[in-house]
């Protein structure tokens, strides 16, 4: 990289996040609205780091009750039995469908954890102005955006199981608060990923090259 790096931001260009139109606002402080679609223009998402941290921390707080509290309660003639996310995975494994158990384990335990960890990693490195592994970090962000939704699987499973198994007094399954926390984790991590701005990853490499900006 040469010393005088040309970036869109420095040249006064901003691309619209809604329609993709590249425009050059008159006032770079207050870019205003996209001339084509009318969405608000921003060079960088506003308060990206603070917002992403807030959502990520909220998600982390929900993560504990999501895994400890039961998501379902099975009532049969012989008694009641609560089911957590992990015990659901174990039951699936024991009944012989290990591949489905693996999918659930990845989707509902590993992905949320990995998401939280990578969000924290991205945020910390951006805040420290790290210039290493920029490409990898950008790729990590893209993966984050795609896989987040798949954690919702367990909530759907709970929904359909609850909806179908209503055979009082033989057997009935009722949802428990764990479901709420679990969907909370999923939604909050999606919000966190959305409020983070991947362009920030590249901004610090600019700062390292030159004194100002």
């Amino acid at each position, binding site marked *: 990289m040469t010393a005088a790096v040309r970036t869109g931001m420095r040249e006064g260009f901003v*691309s619209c996040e809604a329609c993709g139109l590249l425009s050059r606002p008159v006032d770079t402080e207050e870019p205003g609205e996209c*001339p084509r679609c009318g969405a608000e223009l921003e060079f960088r998402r506003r308060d990206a780091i603070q917002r992403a941290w807030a959502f990520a921390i909220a998600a982390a707080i929900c993560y504990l009750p999501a895994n400890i509290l039961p998501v379902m309660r099975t009532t049969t003639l012989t008694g009641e039995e609560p089911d957590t996310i992990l015990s659901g995975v174990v039951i699936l494994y024991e009944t012989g469908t290990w591949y489905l158990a693996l999918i659930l384990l990845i989707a509902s335990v590993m992905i949320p954890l990995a998401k939280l960890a990578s969000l924290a990693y991205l945020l910390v490195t951006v805040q420290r102005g790290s210039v290493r592994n920029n490409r990898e970090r950008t790729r990590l962000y893209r993966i984050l955006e795609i896989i987040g939704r798949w954690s919702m699987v367990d*909530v759907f499973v709970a929904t*359909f199981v*609850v909806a179908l198994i209503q055979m009082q007094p033989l057997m009935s399954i009722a949802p428990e608060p764990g479901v709420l926390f679990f969907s909370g984790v999923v939604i909050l991590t999606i919000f966190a990923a959305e409020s983070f701005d991947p362009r920030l990853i590249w901004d610090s490499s600019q700062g390292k090259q030159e004194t100002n900006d």
Partner: protein
Amino acid sequence: MALAVAAAIAFLITNVEPLMTLSVAGRQASTTIAGGAWQMWEQGEKITAALIALFAVIAPALQIGFMLVILVSVRRPPAPRWVGTLLRWEGIAVSWSMVEVMMLGILVSLVKIAALAKVVPGAGIFAAGGLIVLLAAMSSSFDPREAWSRVRWANGEWPQRALPSFGSDAAEAGR
């Protein structure tokens, strides 16, 4: 266009027909997607129920509905201003529509329930499978840039290739 219409039909079937029916000791029960959300609501998990309804029913419905309206209206450019608004909303609806995630959820719950009772997959489940394929085909054949270039601009100008304050090929470089 054809794909969008097909997706709309598949969506209707998915939501009207029962996903699966199970029978235990001579009793039968069946459910639809909306029924699942409703049951969740009844059992006190209202927020989760609302989320399920949003991701599995409302967002896909909006996605298909917006797509149909957009496709019809950009046939004769320039399309009016509100089509641009729809295009923006369409993008938001897509990001929250989780039909494919729901499908995986259905399959897992199918296996889970199969351990407890006899399950018969309903027409809805196959329609849901078709819907996923159709939605994927629809969004990959739809080019938002092409649609955007046919919509009247927010600042009242006609669709144009050039930027108001810059060279004509800059718009192409925009994405």
